[in-house]
């Protein structure tokens, strides 16, 4: 295999060179614990606060509203479990959607076992949550609304501002899992009425194992990780200084490149989508055509197993996925594709490709050509396709 074409940037991204360069001193010479008293700790302390400032600025937030965590899943767990515990007096009802990441869904299921009640909102055929439906679901005992900013599988960008407005009108806390969106599309927590926001460093060329939770000033939230007094006594554990420096550098870089990357990725994304839909029969784009992450392509090919296609793409040096990489690496029909109304057998045959700023048109030409050959081969061996062709002839 000569070349690797990496099209799984929603799973993780490469670490930016400039990010690594910023991190290096904090892995070697400046290894101090920022919570220590001596002067040696000052450099680490400053680096942590600088990174916090960069992130806050990117969100239109205050520095003190950014809390570093171990990643997106921890942030989601903290937001949900922390709000549930802190607001128990007010009520035990939570609103979310059927297409959330498992970090939210499984946390909700856990809370249900603890006696909370969760409303899982339906989405439309493009994966959009309706702000009206959110508002209609609000009850006097609703304590939290959690709707993802953009979906990790089909790339649909939710109407977060409208949902935030609805939440604000009713005085209900609003959390958004922005793991796929932050660093890729503009977010303004003030304007969008966001109270809690989760993000993860490695989704935009930062390091793994670092993320943050934005907690709006004044929001009551119980701690998830208890221990030392780090992060204003709300999240214990020695600061992951290199990680924090890395996520700061990655945010800086992502904000600078956002506009240019978005334009470039969108053009290549749309080029590839158009080619596939035109050149491969019985293919269907999942997710909204316009309200879509710039780097996301998700397509179903009827009559074939997504699993076989992924392996055959891998054999050609193309890294893609079906839905999310957060399971054992195997394919179950995706809960997201089922929620947008795809039948079970089609939800098996989906392909997700998520581009980066480095993906070229030539890459995608090679990928689309490969997909055409693979789909043709798999369909030639598929009993489902054979039946379909036969029944078409008979008609």
């Amino acid at each position: 295999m000569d070349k690797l074409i990496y099209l799984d940037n929603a799973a993780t991204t490469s670490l930016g060179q400039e990010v690594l360069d910023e991190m290096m001193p904090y892995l070697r010479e400046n290894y101090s614990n920022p919570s220590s008293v001596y002067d040696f700790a000052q450099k680490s302390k400053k680096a942590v606060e600088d990174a916090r400032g960069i992130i806050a600025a990117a969100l239109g937030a205050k520095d003190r509203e950014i809390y570093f965590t171990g990643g997106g899943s921890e942030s989601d767990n903290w937001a949900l479990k922390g709000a549930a515990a802190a607001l128990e007096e007010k009520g035990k009802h939570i609103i979310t959607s059927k297409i959330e990441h498992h970090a939210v869904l499984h946390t909700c299921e856990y809370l249900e076992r603890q006696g909370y009640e969760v409303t899982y909102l339906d989405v439309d055929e493009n994966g959009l949550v309706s702000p009206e439906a959110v508002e209609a679901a609000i009850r006097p005992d609703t304590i939290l609304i959690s709707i993802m900013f953009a979906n990790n599988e089909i790339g649909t960008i939710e109407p977060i501002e409208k949902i935030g407005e609805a939440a604000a009108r009713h005085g209900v806390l609003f959390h958004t899992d922005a793991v796929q969106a932050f660093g890729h599309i503009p977010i303004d927590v003030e304007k969008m009425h966001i109270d809690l926001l989760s993000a993860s460093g490695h989704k935009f060329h930062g390091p793994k194992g670092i993320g943050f939770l934005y907690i709006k000033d004044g929001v009551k939230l119980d701690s998830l990780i208890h221990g030392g007094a780090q992060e204003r006594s709300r999240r214990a554990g020695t600061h992951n200084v290199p990680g924090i420096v890395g996520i700061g550098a990655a945010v800086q870089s992502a904000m600078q490149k956002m506009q240019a990357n978005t334009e470039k990725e969108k053009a290549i994304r749309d080029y590839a989508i158009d080619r596939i839909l035109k050149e491969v029969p019985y293919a269907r784009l999942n997710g909204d055509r316009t309200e879509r992450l710039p780097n996301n392509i998700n397509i179903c090919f009827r009559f074939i197993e997504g699993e076989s296609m992924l392996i055959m793409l891998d054999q050609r040096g193309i890294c893609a996925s079906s839905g999310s990489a957060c399971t054992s690496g195997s394919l179950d029909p995706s809960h997201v594709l089922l929620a947008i109304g795809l039948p079970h057998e089609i939800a098996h045959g989906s392909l997700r490709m998520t581009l980066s700023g480095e993906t070229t048109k030539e890459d995608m030409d090679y990928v689309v050509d490969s997909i055409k050959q693979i789909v043709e081969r798999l369909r030639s061996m598929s009993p489902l396709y054979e039946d379909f062709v036969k029944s078409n002839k008979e008609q």
Partner: protein
Amino acid sequence: MSKKVVVGMSGGVDSSVAAYLLKAQGYEVIGVTMEIWQKEPAGILEKEGGCCGLSAVEDAKRVAGILGIPHYVMNFRDIFQQKVIDYFVQEYQAGRTPNPCIACNRFVKWEALLRRSLEIGADYIATGHYACVKKLPNGRYAIARSKFDRKDQSYALYNLTQEQLSHTLMPAGEYEKEQIRCIAANQGLQVAHKPDSQDICFIPDNDYKRFLEEETGKKPCEGNFVDTSGNVIGKHSGITNYTIGQRKGLNLAFGYPVFVTELRPDTNEVVIGKAEDVYVDALEAVQLHCMAVEHFEEGQRMMAKIRYADKGQMCTIEKLEGDKVFIVFDQKVRAVTPGQAVVFYQENTVLGGGTIIRSC
């Protein structure tokens, strides 16, 4: 170009070494772990030695990494549920004793996995079974016993088709278990000393009665123990709790040992008899499958195994009727169990076999 082979890797020592052996023989090897386990609640401790579960995937991935071969997980949950678990439950409910490994081999490994493997461009699939595949002078393919009898797994492979066998490699059949462990250790595979998988892979605690209750959502129906003349002699706890030849756990006191001789699902009766009643001369089997031979003949003499651990006994085909066969043993055999397979051998070669429906 070298031939491509997909090795079904369970994460155990046998399939790990099978992958190594094939790579050493020059094949292009792709490791695949079949995801067949059903959803398990988080936090359950997995029993070591099982072939299912997430730790199996992790073990297989580590082995693949050491061998330098690609490894994938393929999802066969639905087909496993349908062809193995549902069958398992239905057989018990019908008063038979199923063999889930045979069903898994025939329909999951050698149908679903093989098809998926051919799709991705493989020429063969391989497993770590202790058995051999050979091409006979008559042009047919057949399973032969492992060179070393102790671990032989040919019994559970008797109903593979010619097409399936023509795409099958079984390198472990040439070796003894100890040699396989030795090879694994020499190659630095951490699974070298992993315990053998036992029992039924989808029932890790081995409590099949609990499993049946959970799958069906109901408790088995109590009924009568009857003697061979039909007299009621006690109450049983449900026919799914018994197998032919069972002596323990009957809670019947007669002053001599008694055994289960028959299960009657229609009347929900468990028939109890003396030791000699468990021995029979003949049996009838259906779904007769031909492997080494194109067809069987009345009067044909061969060796038959009536369960996995059976040593085998010479028998004669008394009658053939479509896919039904009636055989008579040279000496009485113990506990012929409907639902189990009867597998026919000529020396070391599997001639074919069928599913036992009754003893006679």
